[in-house]
């Protein structure tokens, strides 16, 4: 088993370079890597027992693989498969597939590691691969967006490195468990890095512009899996070290509300989806013990929505309301929107119920408000006019049906959710949300300012979050 794991981690990097040497085989090799990951993840669900690897003595690389990472790896595998299928008939070069697969491999590496340094390496490789993917069109705008992304994430990771050495000083190892004995400033610095990288709370406001301005398949990858690479260690830390659990939960609630607040007022489809990613990451963090299933659901649904938003005739909701979209596309859009709002028979329902069950009492109200905001913002998609025509490639349907099929299949994971009480609550939330949409939000012309998304403010906000984290660390650790 441990040999298989190591081979599986190395495979994407090896094949990534092989793709560049054999450009004719690019999509087949890329697809096979994603399928191998899917196989590996499903095998994790079968064996059940967690696997811990320790390479090179006690300060070397530690890997911890259990069902939680299984969920994240499965998300990554499915989303990558869908993205490669989506790009099948386009004239993307071998370079694109190489970067996609290296991104896939480094995200996988982030999902299995259990020490701060291998996490650092994985996150930095993600930054580089994501930079190259965002800048792939080579226009001025894409280069600027990619540069901004790399800048913000690299500064955050420098803070993270200082935190990592403080953990080493206290515990003489880099493992996540060392966070328990580390001083609060180590906690603050590491969390600042991870929160910024994962697009959480105010320091994560780089995310909307980056995700909305990149190409459709790249946005699907970024929103579907890449942000989760930084969310997974937060969840893992919260599970391993009980003291940080309240901090992670607080940030989850804050993010869920912030993201949904922006999403409700947003008039652009892709930006709305990007803000929504911010809010859904909050849901994952709000209940760390069940975050894996929520991440799977969100990854599938968000990449499907991004792929669909890419074939809509316009990005502006005002224009879309006067232009009928093709019925099959509309149906796919509605299924995905229903899933994310928590409608029964789709896995979003199970995930929402499971998360709600694991919330602490003080979180419940805020998370219900966030769920209501989700219903409001997705009413914008559901009530678009349909009946028009559009010609999309068959590859688009292959990708979207894979993701939506995954949503329906994942529904069986938590079938205990189907009680009358559980079904009524999401339906009521959706109903109230739609009512609010028709009465208030459909006609609102209120536009939120973008001041916080400017580059210098993104870096500046990091220092504010650092102060906040210091204060929290001191209070909760009781030092």
């Amino acid at each position: 088993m441990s040999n298989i794991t190591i081979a599986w981690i190395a495979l994407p990097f090896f094949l990534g370079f092989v793709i560049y040497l054999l450009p004719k085989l690019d999509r087949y090799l890329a697809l096979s890597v994603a399928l191998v990951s899917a196989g590996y993840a499903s095998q994790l669900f079968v064996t059940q027992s967690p696997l811990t690897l320790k390479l090179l003595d006690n300060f070397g690389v530690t890997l911890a693989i259990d069902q939680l990472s299984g969920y994240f790896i499965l998300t990554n595998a499915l989303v990558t498969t869908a993205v490669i299928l989506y790009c099948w008939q386009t004239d993307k070069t071998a370079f694109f597939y190489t970067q996609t697969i290296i991104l896939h491999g480094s995200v996988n590496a982030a999902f299995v590691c259990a020490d701060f340094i291998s996490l650092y390496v994985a996150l930095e490789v993600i930054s580089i691969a994501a930079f190259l993917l965002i800048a792939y069109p080579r226009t001025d705008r894409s280069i600027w967006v990619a540069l901004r992304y790399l800048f913000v994430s690299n500064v955050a990771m420098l803070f993270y490195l200082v935190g990592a050495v403080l953990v080493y000083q206290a515990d003489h190892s880099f493992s996540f468990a060392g966070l328990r004995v580390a001083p609060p400033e180590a906690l603050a610095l590491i969390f600042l890095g991870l929160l910024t990288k994962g697009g959480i709370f105010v320091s994560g406001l780089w995310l909307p512009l980056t995700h909305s301005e990149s190409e459709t398949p790249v946005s699907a990858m970024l929103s579907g899996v890449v942000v989760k690479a930084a969310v997974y260690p937060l969840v893992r830390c919260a599970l391993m070290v009980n003291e940080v659990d309240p901090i992670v939960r607080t940030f989850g609630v804050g993010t869920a509300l912030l993201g949904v607040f922006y999403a409700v007022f947003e008039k652009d489809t892709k930006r709305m989806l990007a803000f929504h990613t911010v809010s859904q990451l909050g849901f994952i963090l709000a209940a760390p013990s069940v975050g894996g299933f929520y991440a799977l659901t969100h990854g599938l649904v968000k990449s499907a929505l991004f792929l669909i938003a890419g074939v809509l005739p316009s990005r502006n909701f005002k224009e879309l309301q006067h232009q009928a979209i093709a019925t099959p596309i509309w149906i796919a859009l509605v299924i995905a929107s229903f899933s994310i709002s928590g409608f029964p028979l789709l896995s979003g329902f199970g995930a929402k119920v499971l998360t709600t069950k694991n919330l602490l009492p003080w979180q419940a109200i805020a998370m219900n408000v966030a769920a209501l905001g989700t219903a409001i913002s997705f009413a914008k998609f559901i009530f678009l006019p349909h009946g028009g025509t559009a010609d999309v490639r068959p590859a688009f349907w292959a990708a979207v049906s894979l993701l939506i099929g995954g949503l329906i299949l994942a529904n069986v994971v938590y079938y205990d959710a189907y009680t009358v009480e559980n079904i009524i609550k999401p339906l009521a939330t959706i109903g109230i949300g739609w009512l609010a949409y028709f009465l208030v939000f459909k006609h609102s012309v209120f536009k939120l300012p973008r001041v916080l998304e400017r580059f210098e403010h993104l870096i500046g906000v990091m220092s504010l979050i650092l102060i906040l984290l210091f204060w929290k660390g001191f209070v909760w650790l009781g030092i």
Partner: protein
Amino acid sequence: MLEACIFATILCGFFGIIFKKNLVMKIISMDVMSTGVIAYYVLVASRDGFFTPIVSNAKNGAYADPVPQAVILTAIVIGFSIQALMLVGVMKLARDNPTLESDEIEKNNTP
């Protein structure tokens, strides 16, 4: 004392990223910051002593801790490659924005 100097370096770099207007200057500030971080790793490694831990016939001394140094080597390589990548990006941007003022570039390229 040394620790305070290192943190001052990190903060200088951080504020440089915020306050410098030119994109190349921002990247150099980021490099200053990462130099500070690397220096901090070296400082942590040398807490117990300065001797390089190499197998030889010399008598045992106060050895430096090899782990943080080994680890920071990765970070140096990554930092350097990111820097190279960023400078290439800036070079491409410089064709259309010769001044490289980050405010101007941001204004031209935000929808």
